[in-house]
């Protein structure tokens, strides 16, 4: 069960090998975490994440390969997950793939693949888990959105557009779940230094995964519905949204 400070005991992670989800789980492990089910596309990074959690004395850590783009498997996976954990306090949706759009290589297939990975799959998974959590009568869903989705830039517009969709889906789902005991928290990090962003040019307020993790846990404590990391981005992006297209299009990438 989640406690009154918002801390979960059991967590399912989609995208469990990512640096961000690992950082978040590290903090939760120091609080109330007892059982974790890590899922993701690549077994090796899941195992590394699982080993780390076992080293932090989390009593039960399991892994399973799951690709969120295999939409047909998601409903039965959500049912199986609640059977395995007994109760799911928190579902962390951290699956995704960054891509810097390059019109010379971009084609229809690539756009479909990127939007499935960053929007359709995560949204479908949230829907499946929302059903399970509603039946439980409690639970939290944390979904990693991005400032890239708040105002889409030319430099990563496919990724940004997909995140924009996921962000809207997350806030809308949260509102739709009102009164069910289930809540959704949408996290909007800025540029985070992770293996997903290695080699990218660092944007000025680049942050570490641990900062995102601290902000997420702080958001759970406060019962926040939206979390910006760093928090100042809320105001920066509010201004960015007002910039005319002629200026915005020249934003360095």
């Amino acid at each position: 069960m989640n406690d009154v400070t918002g801390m979960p005991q059991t967590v399912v992670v989609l995208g469990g090998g990512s640096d961000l989800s690992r950082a978040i789980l590290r903090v939760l492990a120091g609080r109330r975490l007892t059982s974790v089910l890590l899922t993701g596309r690549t077994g090796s990074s899941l195992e590394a994440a699982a080993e780390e959690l076992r080293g932090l004395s989390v009593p039960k850590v399991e892994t399973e390969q799951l690709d969120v783009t295999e939409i047909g498997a998601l409903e039965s996976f959500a049912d199986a997950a609640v059977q395995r954990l007994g109760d799911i306090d928190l579902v962390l949706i951290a699956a995704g793939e960054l891509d810097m759009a390059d019109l010379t290589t971009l084609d229809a297939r690539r756009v479909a693949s990127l939007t499935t990975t960053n929007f359709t799959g995560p949204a479908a998974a949230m829907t499946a888990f929302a059903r399970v959590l509603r039946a439980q009568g409690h639970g939290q869903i944390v979904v990693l959105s991005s400032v890239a989705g708040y105002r889409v830039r030319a430099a990563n517009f496919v990724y940004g557009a997909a995140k924009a969709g996921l962000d809207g889906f997350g806030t809308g789902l949260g509102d739709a779940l009102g009164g069910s005991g289930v809540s959704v928290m949408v996290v909007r990090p800025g540029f985070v230094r992770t293996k997903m962003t290695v080699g990218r040019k660092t944007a000025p307020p680049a942050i570490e995964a641990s900062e995102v993790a601290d902000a997420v846990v702080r958001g759970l404590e406060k019962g926040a519905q939206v979390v910006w990391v760093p928090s100042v981005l809320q105001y920066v992006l509010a201004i960015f949204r007002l910039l005319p297209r002629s200026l915005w299009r020249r934003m360095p990438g």
Partner: protein
Amino acid sequence: MTARSSGELLAGWGRACPSAARVVSPQTAEDVTAFLSEPGPHLPRGLGRSYGDAAQCAGGTVIDCTALDSIVELDHIESRVKVDAGCSLDSLLRVIVPQGFFVPVTPGTRYVTVGGAIASDVHGKNHHRDGTISAHVERLELATPTARLECGPEEEAELFWATAGGMGLTGVITDATLRLVPIETSRMLVDTERTADLDACMARMAETDAQHRYSVAWVDSLARGRQLGRSVITVGDHAGITDLPDNLRDDPLEFSPRQLLNVPVTPPISLLNPMTVAAFNEAWYRRAPRQRTGELQRISTFFHPLDGIGNWNVLYGPRGFTQYQFVVPFGSESVVRRVLERLSSARMASFLAVLKRFGAAGKGYLSFPFTGWTFALDLPLGTAGLAVVLDELDEIVANAGGRVYLSKDGRVRPEILHAMYPRIGEWDEVRRSVDPQGVLVSDLSRRLRLTGPGSRQGPRVFGGGRP
């Protein structure tokens, strides 16, 4: 028998982690049995005054007992009452006070049910003399998932002591017979005294406790430095008819407390923040006389001051609040001081911190009080660092042989809770004898692994192995 809803969001008094459940409202004890025979999980609920998740059963059926509210029989000769478990202390007092009786134990609010009070084994300002409410229960009727049983200290005693303080997890109490306290008037004779710091407060309480039936201290949890723990001690006894002035003697047992106001809406942010609480505490402390004796107060003023404001809990805003209440043995005064220092230096505002000396423990397996100091503080949730600070305080309390109170808790670590309550395993043995399938479940019992295999591992080592 009526099923009220298929999915209703239920929270504790602190409003912090609601969960949804089907709610049913039995009209008779037979209805309770019928509901319990349906597939679980189930949990009884009274007026929802437990602060945390004790009266929630996510995804299950919550049995709302408040329609079982009859006062069955008031025996004037033997000073006892048989009352249905869903009757509130408020309703009960409105009937028995004008007839010259008072409840043996009342918590700080009248808005609890008799069944809920027994399931929490509540204490009041008279604990040092009279113990918890279960010490005054002659018998009760319990609907378990398998049977309807009578139990009390003389019959089915193990089940009785597993039920008193058992958080509703042994069955649904449907009625109870309580021994009452005869009173001549509905007024209290109250002495009030200000003390400058915590040591003075504790010393003074130790001196005066034995001379009064009721005793408690309010502590300014935001005062620091030399003023740390400055307090207002109140002690009291039921006033006799000769203590009343002439104008009150016509109707000495008059009792009709009114709610002065109701908080109409939940404010968007907590109105109880360090600034407002500090101002309130300053005023409260200064308003109290340095020393005053023999003041006449109404029962409601003395015992239930916050009941005058309906829904005061929403003043903490949408995030809600928790109460940290613990007890440590006499000799561990330094623990009370450390808790107070830690919270006051972190400016984790507390409106009303309450200090009291407990008398001897009762026999309830999970009953909270034992001989020592108990201290309770309301804390707004969402404050940065609060969760971690409370974890530290738990360890200090547990290492001193103390414990926290389940009816207030919403966040203690399960392993520490098990160390604080070494009889959980024994309690679970008794519980399983009446609920072998584990049908009775609460969010609290799941969070703290009170029932099932987790409860029988015995206390585990805590304090190490964490980053």
